[in-house]
């Protein structure tokens, strides 16, 4: 049987993505996503630009937002706060991983 092969893409493969694509990938309504930008949970590369674009990692943040919004029934403001906590947890976990990796294990 001939099985088709597909490339799995890193979400951060491309430097930036556009507003329309972010809406499409996040699963959120445009108004909800706009509120996340206003609350600072998502930051456009150039907020003054007429056509917003975002760092590709914003897709991960927007998808997390979509999931939390759906699963926990949060309003936009609560969602922005929770996203900030999630980001803080990710930062601390990365710091902990770096500390653990950089310390020699006892022999």
């Amino acid at each position, binding site marked *: 049987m001939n099985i088709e092969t597909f490339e*799995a893409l890193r979400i951060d493969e491309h430097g930036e993505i556009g507003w329309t694509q972010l809406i499409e*990938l996040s699963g959120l309504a445009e108004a909800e996503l706009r509120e996340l930008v206003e609350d600072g949970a998502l930051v456009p590369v150039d907020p003054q630009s007429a056509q917003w674009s975002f760092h590709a990692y914003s897709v991960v943040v927007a998808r997390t937002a979509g999931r939390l919004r759906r699963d926990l029934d949060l309003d936009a403001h609560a969602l922005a706060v929770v996203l900030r906590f999630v980001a803080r947890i990710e930062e601390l976990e*990365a710091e902990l991983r770096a500390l653990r990796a*950089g*310390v020699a294990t006892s022999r």
Partner: protein
Amino acid sequence: MKYKDYYAILGIGRDASADDIKKAYRKLARKYHPDVSKEPNAEEKFKEMAEAYETLKDPEKRAAYDQLGRYTPGQDFQPPPDWGQQFAGARTAFDDIDFADLFAGLAGRHAAGARGARAFTSGRDYEAVVRLTFDQAFHGTEIELDLSVLEFDENGTPRRAPRRIKVRIPKGVTDGQQLRIPGKGGKGVNGGRDGDLYLDIAVESHPLYRVSGQDLYLDLPLAPWEAVLGTTVRLPTPAGAVSLKVPPGTRASQQLRLSGRGLSRPDGAAGNLYAIVQIVVPSAIDERQRALYRQLAETSNFNPRAHLEQEAVHEH
């Protein structure tokens, strides 16, 4: 098909009100949501309770669920004969779908009715967990995935179709990273875009290398005289062994960097590999070695605790 007791999953009685259902779900979601929970099996438990809530919060779906009757969780069962007539477009066979799909069909019919038969709907995004060895993650690999894809026919009746695909995983992926395969999720309806397939990458830990971002860390044990005099060691790296020059006077915990020997980055560059020096001493020495150490102790004027002694003098 295996029966699931949605009420038991949410820990509520069959007569629970809509408000009780919501409260029970919210309480459990706080505990088990995979984005915030560190409970073991949180993801699995959350999926189960989200599926239960999805059905019980919707009066139409809840009525359909209640009409199935009561069985023991996990028991093989088929919906009663008249159930298909009432809820699934006169369908009588249910072998090709999962338990939750019984109610997903209802949502499809409802949505089509509300928005008109020609309304387009995007396909669902799917997620699958892919477990890789460290070497597969480092070098990149090709894997085969068996998916069970939910499709709807023109009447909105759901069915599961098996789909096998091959996927090329790029080199340098890390534990917890997500990869996307565009258009390989659920089929869009009436011209809606197809969903995407997301892969959650889990990478097994390696007995030698520890990962932080794209950098790797490896313990490098040295004998005391190697650290003092310097040496050249053969060091394993995931891309093959290399010679590493250890300079004289190397200290414990010092990190010796091998540039570009870490995990690949999307931009084509790579992280570094750090060899962390450990100074280890032999657990047993013979008389001759003991004599040599004594001789060294008598000859050397090295004082590793000079800073502590200075502090002790200040305290007096």
